[in-house]
């Protein structure tokens, strides 16, 4: 079942290689496959029992010589991300209906990306995880280099080399885990049960360093974030949405899925470092975003800020001494919620910048002004997404950030008090962006007429904002799934 979900997009994509499929049919095929995948996820969601731990498990022999298996399954950490991924890919599929340039290759790459993204979140084996992790980089490289604009090749190359380097470091960490396990295995579930590096100071520290650096590059946290702004500003809108919405989550997901359960002892020892990295990312990302004049770069930097909250939450969960379990569970639940929330909201924001680029041909905020006049619905959608991103109650971001702050204050009071300032700076920068682009006297590059959002664009973007709203008002359906898994992670870390 899960394998069908994962490999359906790629299989259909390969079918599209058959000659003489018209471009429009290719686009619609992508929409249909994504919709079917999403429907499948909804079915899986309904059938999943959160109390049962890992569901829909498949475990077959794959590379027995290194005890690596094709082991997949979903639990409360991965199911929400799988659902978010399917939703975002569907939104991008709808958004890309107007794609005219080398359509078939574009769609094929996205379908490949969809398969590897879903595969990564359901993988329960380190090698499998690593394969998906790496292929995602390759696919995204081609999307940026092939369909980007501006300095796309350079940005794509930087993205590729930087994140590929990260994945190699990550692989070193995985090998470290494999070698320290007894019996040796790459299976995450077995490794988590063994917790192989407990009590091994230096080796544990080195393996943790490799894992954390590898994941931190992908997340990205300060100071490993500089590949992100150029990659975003030169990528096509759908590519940016997937890059920020899905690919960044692979980093933070690695923390809760791999590092925390398998290395509880080491995680606890270095939790304060993680917390500090998180807080620095929060404040630094927000401040640098505040200084941007390019809308897309600005949103890219807010991703550094938002991922910083996730890192803060998972770090705080490692500060076990003297804090309540309720607080730490809230922090981890908030971190996972933030991954989902950020995927939806930033996905929407990047698609909206795509709308802007399609109208004016630039992301420079100074080139625009007063767009709320000619394009009121565009303004409303952007304002809704911006307020969602700055953590307004009623949207998913608030549910996530409130949990992270409330849960982290007990284990890490001073860092959390500093991190809270992040939501103020984010508020300032989004108001500034709204003011520059949408309010004031109407202005557009070269005096072009700016049309409002089209029906296709609305049907791609509005559902994302709406979903963020639904999670913000009725979060139980999501939290019912996340909470048991978050509690399990907290217990694993505390053992």
């Amino acid at each position: 079942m899960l394998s069908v979900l994962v490999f359906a997009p790629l299989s259909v994509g390969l079918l599209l290689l058959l000659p003489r499929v018209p471009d429009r049919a290719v686009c619609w095929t992508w929409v249909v496959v994504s919709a079917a995948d999403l429907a499948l996820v909804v079915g899986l969601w309904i059938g999943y029992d959160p109390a049962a731990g890992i569901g829909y498990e498949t475990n077959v022999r794959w590379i027995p010589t290194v005890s690596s298996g094709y082991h997949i399954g979903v639990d409360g950490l991965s199911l929400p991300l799988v659902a978010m991924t399917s939703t975002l890919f569907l939104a991008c599929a709808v958004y890309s209906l107007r794609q005219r340039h080398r359509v078939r290759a574009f769609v094929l790459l996205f379908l490949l990306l969809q398969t590897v993204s879903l595969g990564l979140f359901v993988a329960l084996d380190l090698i499998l995880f690593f394969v998906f992790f790496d292929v995602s980089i390759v696919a995204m490289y081609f999307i940026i280099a092939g369909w980007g604009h501006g300095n796309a090749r350079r940005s794509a190359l930087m993205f590729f080399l930087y994140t590929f380097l990260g994945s190699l470091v990550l692989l070193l960490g995985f090998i470290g885990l494999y070698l320290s396990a007894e019996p040796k295995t790459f299976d995450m579930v077995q490794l988590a049960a063994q917790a192989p590096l407990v009590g091994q100071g230096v080796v544990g520290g080195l393996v943790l360093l490799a894992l954390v650096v590898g994941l931190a590059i992908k997340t990205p946290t300060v100071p490993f974030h500089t590949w992100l702004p150029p990659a975003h500003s030169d990528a096509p809108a759908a590519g940016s949405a997937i890059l920020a919405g899905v690919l960044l989550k692979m980093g933070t997901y690695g923390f809760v899925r791999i590092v925390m359960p398998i290395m509880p002892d080491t995680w606890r020892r270095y939790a304060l470092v993680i917390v500090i990295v998180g807080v620095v990312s929060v404040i630094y990302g927000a401040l640098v975003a505040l200084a941007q004049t390019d809308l897309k770069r600005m949103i890219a930097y807010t991703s550094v800020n938002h991922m910083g909250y996730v890192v803060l939450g998972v770090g705080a969960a490692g500060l076990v001494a003297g804090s309540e379990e309720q607080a730490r569970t809230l922090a981890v639940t908030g971190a996972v919620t933030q991954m989902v929330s950020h995927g939806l909201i930033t996905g929407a924001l990047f698609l909206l910048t795509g709308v802007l680029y399609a109208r004016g041909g630039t992301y420079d905020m100074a080139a625009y002004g007063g767009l709320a006049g000619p394009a009121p619905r565009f303004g409303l959608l952007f304002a809704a997404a911006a307020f969602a991103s700055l953590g307004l109650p009623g949207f998913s971001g608030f549910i996530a950030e409130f949990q992270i702050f409330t849960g982290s204050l007990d284990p890490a009071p001073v860092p959390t008090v500093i991190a809270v300032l992040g939501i103020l700076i984010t508020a300032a920068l989004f108001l500034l962006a709204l003011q520059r682009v949408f309010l004031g006297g109407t202005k557009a590059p070269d005096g072009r007429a700016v049309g409002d959002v089209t029906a296709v664009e609305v049907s791609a973007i509005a559902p994302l904002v709406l979903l963020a709203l639904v999670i913000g008002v009725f979060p139980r359906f999501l939290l019912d799934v996340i909470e048991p898994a978050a509690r399990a992670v907290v217990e694993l870390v505390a053992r």
Partner: protein
Amino acid sequence: MVAALVALVSVPVLAGLALLVAGRSANRIAAPVAICAASVALLLAVLVAIGRPAVSSPLLAGIEAGLAVDGLSAVMVLTVTAVALAVTVFAAAEVDARYRFFGLLLVFVGAMLLTVTATNLLTLLAGWEVMGAMSYALIAHHWRQPRPPESGAVAFLTTRTADLGLYIAAGAALAGGVGGLALAELPAASSGWRDLLTAGVVIAALGKSAQLPFSFWLARAMDGPSPVSALLHSATMVAAGGYLLLRLEPLLAASSWAGTVVAWVGVTSAVLLGAVALAQTDLKQLLAASTCSQIGFIVLAAGVGGTAGGTLQLVAHAVTKSLLFLVAGAWLTALGSKQLPALRGAARRWPLVGLVFAAGALSLAGVPPLSIFFGKEAVLAAAAQASPALYVAGLLGVVVSAAYAAAALAAVVGRPPDDDTLYDTELRGTREIPTLARIPLVPLALAAAVLGSAAEPVRAALDATTEPTPTLTEALLSGAVSVAVVLAVLLPARAALRGDAVLPELPRVVAACARVGPLREWLGLERLAERAVATPTLALARALSVFDARAVDGAVWAGAATVRTAAQLADLRVEAAVSRSVLRLARAAVAMGRLARRPQTGQLHHYYAQAACALAVLALFLLVVR
């Protein structure tokens, strides 16, 4: 009854969202929809005020979303919905872009209703923040001009700065053992965390209620349409800050410092912002500063444990101030100006409107037996019990309040100017006040006049019968002070009441205070915030941005460049050297090969000779080795 409570919050919010999503096509029906929604909300408020329902549902792990109506909430929901209805009706005669205005207004009111019925910090914070965001959008209503959006941003960012206190308070409550974040249980938090919790709550409340040092955002909020000011400054937004402190009075009382700090901030704001009000030559700015001053009394009440007095003051101020702002807005629309010199004679030009303004101004002045007199009296009685110094400071606040309210009144009486030169400075006036705009003024004026009689019901509703009531001496003293100050300001203008005297453009007390720069400039708080916070933050952001591009990104590229240089080096030096040595080796091998071929002559006697030589060498070797 539970459904009524849920509907009380959700009806305005859903109606507002529907209008916003419907867009321009809803312009025509926006006002009727809003009036209907506000009326339904008022009806539901009456229902829940009688029924006192409570409802909660799970939201986060261990933290529920809870709504409940107790005595204080009952008073608040009635006040909020009543004022909201009045403002909505008034706005129906006034504003443009109606779908957006009424949509935002309804969401705003719904958020305030959520705030005042919330039973825990999470629910309260949700309403609290949404209200702030809506205030941004409402203040920025005229978004084509540069200033209103900026003012909205100032208001939102200032209040959100303070709101961070609530985020921290929530974490502190959890850490202090109040897992459900219930407001009623907050005083039971463990002591260290409780101090942090209290500090967070106090900062958030002071920010929202525009007390010192946050007051300046309220001045900027004046750039919104008048109905927005009327709502923001009366029963919502600023009132939310006062409400939170009244609601959490037990928390303040549980700490050794919070009550004192809050009381003194409140009374200082009452006096200083009252002086600021005296220095304003713009009616809306005068009223805005007076809001800070009057809310100061509510904050003072919370600090000294006079919740019933504070609540009465909140209600009396809400109706009075919404009335005054609506009248100011009506004059602004009609005359195109809100400058005091231009408003000379406005009261006489529209007598009914002038009369209700006079009622509001006298209530604001604390003249007995109008409503605010009773509110202030009850607050001062509680202050007197807590500390004589606070009482004296409070009396000073009464003096200033009477002065600015009387000054506002004095500015609008008299004979209207003969020509229109002072009019239409801010917008093109219509020279008329439509009937629809007058309708809500009358009930508000009546309420502003008689709500003082609600003192006992409010005490009963809050179950605060043991709170000190004003003694006769205190009441006489404060009433006499108010009346004396009002007379002192108004007497020079008495000739104007007959309509024939030529008066100075500004009441004397205003003219005198307006010469004091800091008072005119709201104590320079906005400039301070700009210079001490906003500018350095932006400068830091730009510096970090440069740092990010040069140092962080630069380091990555330097790393890459190093690898490249190493590669080039390897290519040029190492690679060439290796290649050279390989070639040399090859040549040597070739040479050796040639050398090795030389003995291969094919002639047998050469081979024998070679074998003999080799044996000789071998023998020699053996000899040497042995």
